[in-house]
C-alpha cells in the first residue's frame, strides 16, 4: 500500500514537471461559430507592417533623406502610398521619413524617393529651389516655377523639375559629378508630396520613362491602417462639415441621426440617400464596399475588382461609385426583396465619407444620374 502510494506521488510529481520540458499538445477545435458575415475583412495583401501600424520596412538607401532638416517632416500625416515598381528597378529601404525608396537595379548611385511633408512643406518655390541648390543650379523665382512643366501625381498636376548638375549628395551618399535630377512636387491641402529621382546623367535620362511610369502608378493605399490606437477617438470640434446641391427631384429631410444628411427622392417612401462620415480611414474603401455587398447578399469583391470600379471626381479626389442589385437586408432585420443600392466612397486624408442610396429597384432605376450629381456636388466647407 505504502509502495503504491509512493509510486502515485512520484508519478504526479513527474507529470507536474513534464510541461516545463517543452513539447506540443494537440487539441481539437471545439468552439466554432458560424456567422452571416465576418466581423472584419482585410485585403489579402495586408502586410505585417500594416497590421502593426508601421510603414513597410525596406532595405538601405544610398541617397539618404531628401528632406533632412526640413521642419515639419516628423509630423507628416500617416498616409500610406501604394505603387508599381517599374521593371528594372528595385525597392530599397529608406529612412523612416520616406514613404518609398527605389533605385535602378545594378546602379547603386541612383536614388528615387517618395515622401511628404505636413502643410506646404515650406512652399513650392522654396522646395524647387532647395532641389536646384542640391544640384548646384541657380534659383528660380515664382514666375520661373510657374512655367515649369506639369506631370500627374496622385491624379493631380505636380510641378516637374528636371535639371542637370553636380549632385552634392545626401546623408551618407557620395556626390555625383555629372548628375541629373527628376522631381515632382505636389501641393495638397495640408500636405506636400515629393517624388525625386537622382543619379548619373546617362542612367537617369535612360530611365526617365520608368520614373514617369512610377509617378503614374503611385496612389493612396486605402486599405492601409493608421497607427493603432486601442480606443475610439471621440468626435470633437474638428469634425469636417459639408455642403451639397440637391437634385431638383430630391428633398432634404430634417432630424436625421448619425448622418451628415439624409435626402430622398420626392414621394419615394422606401428610398433614401444619405451621407455618412467616419473618422480616420473609416475601415477603408474595400471594407465599406464589401459591407454594402453583404447587405445585398452579394459576395465580396477582391481588391483587383474594386480597382476596376468606376471613379468620379468629387471632394477633390477620385471617388469609387458602384451599383449593387439584390435582396437588401439591414442589420435590424429590415428587408427589401428586389433592391438597388448605389454607393460612393470618398476617402480623404483624415476621414472617409460615404454616400449610400437604397430602395426598391423600380424606384431607384432612374436615380443613378441624380445620385452621381449629388455626390459630385458635395464639398467640404
Amino acid at each position, binding site marked *: 500500500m505504502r509502495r503504491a502510494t509512493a509510486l502515485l506521488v512520484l508519478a504526479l510529481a513527474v507529470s507536474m514537471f513534464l510541461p516545463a520540458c517543452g513539447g506540443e499538445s494537440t487539441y481539437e477545435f471545439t468552439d466554432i461559430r458560424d456567422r452571416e458575415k465576418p466581423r472584419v475583412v482585410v485585403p489579402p495583401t495586408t502586410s*505585417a507592417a500594416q497590421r502593426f501600424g508601421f510603414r513597410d520596412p525596406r532595405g538601405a538607401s544610398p541617397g539618404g533623406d531628401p528632406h533632412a532638416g526640413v521642419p515639419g517632416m516628423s509630423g507628416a500625416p500617416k498616409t500610406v502610398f501604394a505603387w508599381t515598381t517599374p521593371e528594372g528597378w528595385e525597392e530599397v529601404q529608406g529612412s523612416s521619413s520616406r514613404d518609398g525608396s527605389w533605385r535602378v537595379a545594378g546602379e547603386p548611385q541612383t536614388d528615387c524617393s517618395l515622401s511628404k511633408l505636413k502643410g506646404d512643406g515650406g512652399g513650392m518655390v522654396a522646395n524647387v529651389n532647395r532641389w536646384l541648390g542640391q544640384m548646384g543650379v541657380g534659383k528660380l523665382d515664382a514666375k520661373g516655377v510657374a512655367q515649369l512643366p506639369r506631370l500627374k501625381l496622385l491624379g493631380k498636376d505636380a510641378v516637374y523639375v528636371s535639371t542637370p548638375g553636380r549632385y552634392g549628395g545626401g546623408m551618407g551618399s557620395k556626390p555625383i559629378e555629372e548628375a541629373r535630377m527628376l522631381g515632382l512636387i505636389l501641393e495638397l491641402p495640408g500636405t506636400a508630396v515629393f517624388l525625386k529621382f537622382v543619379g548619373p546623367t546617362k542612367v537617369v535620362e535612360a530611365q526617365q520613362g520608368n520614373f514617369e511610369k512610377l509617378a503614374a502608378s503611385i496612389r493612396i493605399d486605402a486599405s492601409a491602417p493608421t497607427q493603432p490606437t486601442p480606443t*475610439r477617438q471621440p468626435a470633437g470640434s474638428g469634425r469636417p462639415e459639408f455642403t451639397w446641391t440637391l437634385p431638383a427631384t430630391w428633398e432634404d429631410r430634417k432630424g436625421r*441621426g448619425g448622418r451628415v444628411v439624409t435626402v430622398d427622392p420626392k414621394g419615394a417612401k422606401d428610398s433614401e440617400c444619405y451621407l455618412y462620415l467616419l473618422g480616420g480611414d473609416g475601415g477603408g474603401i474595400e471594407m465599406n464596399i464589401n459591407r454594402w455587398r453583404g447587405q445585398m447578399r452579394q459576395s465580396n469583391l477582391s481588391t483587383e475588382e474594386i480597382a476596376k470600379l468606376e471613379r468620379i471626381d468629387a471632394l477633390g479626389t477620385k471617388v469609387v461609385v458602384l451599383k449593387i442589385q439584390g435582396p437588401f437586408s439591414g442589420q435590424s432585420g429590415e428587408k427589401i426583396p428586389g433592391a438597388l443600392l448605389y454607393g460612393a466612397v470618398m476617402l480623404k486624408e483624415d476621414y472617409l465619407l460615404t454616400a449610400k442610396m437604397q430602395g426598391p429597384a423600380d424606384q431607384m432605376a432612374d436615380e443613378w444620374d441624380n445620385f452621381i450629381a449629388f455626390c459630385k456636388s458635395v464639398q467640404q466647407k
Partner: protein
Amino acid sequence: MGDFLKKAVVFLGSFELAFILLVLLGLLTFVGTLAQVDMSLYDVQQTYFESFLITDYKVGPIPVPLLGGYLLLSIFFVNIVVGGIIRIRKGKSTVGILISHVGIVFLLAGSFVEFQLSTKGQMTLWEPEEFADLNGNGQWDPGERFDDANRNMRYDDGESGSAYKSTSEWEVVVTELKASGGAREYIIPQDHFEDLGEGDSTRYTHQDLPFDVVLSGYALNAEPRPARASEARAGVGLDGFVLLARDPVTTNNMRNLPGIIASLKPTDGGKAKSAILWGGSMQRNGNRIPWPVSMGGKSYQVDLRSQTWDLPFAVRLNRFVHKRHAGIAMAKEYSSYVTKIQDGQLRDIHITMNEPMRHQGVTLYQTGWGPQDQPRAKRFWSTFSVVENPSDRIPMWACIVIAIGLLWHFLRRLYLHLKAESRRRTAAAQGGSA
C-alpha cells in the same frame, strides 16, 4: 482505517474547521484588499480569490504561502454540507439553521456556476448626432428614437452593437471567409495558450481545416518591432518583425497587449505559413486587422483579439445622460437610453446605475461614459458591463432562503423565550398567591 475516515468526516464537518476557514477567508480579504494598491482588480481576483494556492506572498522578506479563495470556499462548501446539513442534529430546534445552511450551500454553488460558466465583458456604443424630434421642442426626449425621423422603425447597418468583449481575456480566432459572404470562426481561448513556456507549443486541428494551427511564444504584454539587420541576416523574425516581450502591466491589466506566434501547417505536408499575432493590431476606429492568409484554395484571417461574445439581440444607444448636483461636481445621474433590437422588434429601455437591463440571461450595467474631458461634446459614448451568467439570480434566492431560515430560527427562539417567560411569571404569580 474506518476510524480515520470517521475522524476525517467529523473534522470536515466541525465548527473548528468552519472557524479556521472563516478566519482565513477574512485574512485573505484583508491581504487581497491591500494588494490592490499595486495590482489591478483583475490581477487581484486571479491571484487571491480565484486560485488554490498563493505561493508568492511575502511578509517582508519571508515567503508565506496562503490558501487561495477557490480552495478555501471549496473546503467551506464541504464543511457546511457535512457539518451543517448531513451531520447536524435534526429536530424542531434546528430547522431554521438547516434552512440557512441550505441557502449558504446554494450561494456557494451559484458562485461556482458563475465562476465556471459566466462571461463578462464590455460594450461601448456611441450616440448618433441627431434624433427624431417628434414633439418639435428642439430637444431630445425619451421615446424619440434616433435615425428614425420617418418613423419607419429601421436602423442602419453599423449603428448598433450586438457583441461584447472581454477587457482582460484574449483568444486566437481563425476565420474562414466563405464565398457566400459568410464566415466560420474557429476559436482558441486564452487559457489554452497562456501558460505556454519557452519551447512549448499547442496544436489545434479540425477536419474542415486544411491545416493545423500551432501556437507558441505567447507573451502577456508584447510589442512587435522591425527586425534589425543582424536579426534579419540570422533569420530571426517573421515578415521582417520580431515579437518583443515586455513586462506585464500589473496595475492596469487592460494596458497589456499580448502577442503570440501562429503557424498554419498544411495537413497534406505542404509548406507552413507563420506570423506574429498582436493584440494591438487594430485601426483607429477600433476595427481589428487580422493576418490574411490563403491555404487550400480558401481565404482565412487569423487574429489575436479580445474574447468576444455575441448577444442574442442588438442594442442601440439613443442618448447618454449625465447630470450633476447643482454647483458641485458630484454626479446626480448617469444613465443611458437604449433601444433593444431583436427579430425586427424595437424596445426602449432606460439603463441607470442601479437599474441594469436584463434580458435572456444577459445583464447590461451602466459602467462608463465619455469623452469626460468634453462636457459639451456633440456625441457621447456609453460603456456597459455585459454579464452573461446562468446563475445571476441565485445570490438573491440564496439570500432569501438564508433569511427565511434565520427568521424561522430567531422567531422560534423568541417564541420559546416568551413562552418560558410566561410560564415563569405564571409560576411566580401562583407562588405569590399561595
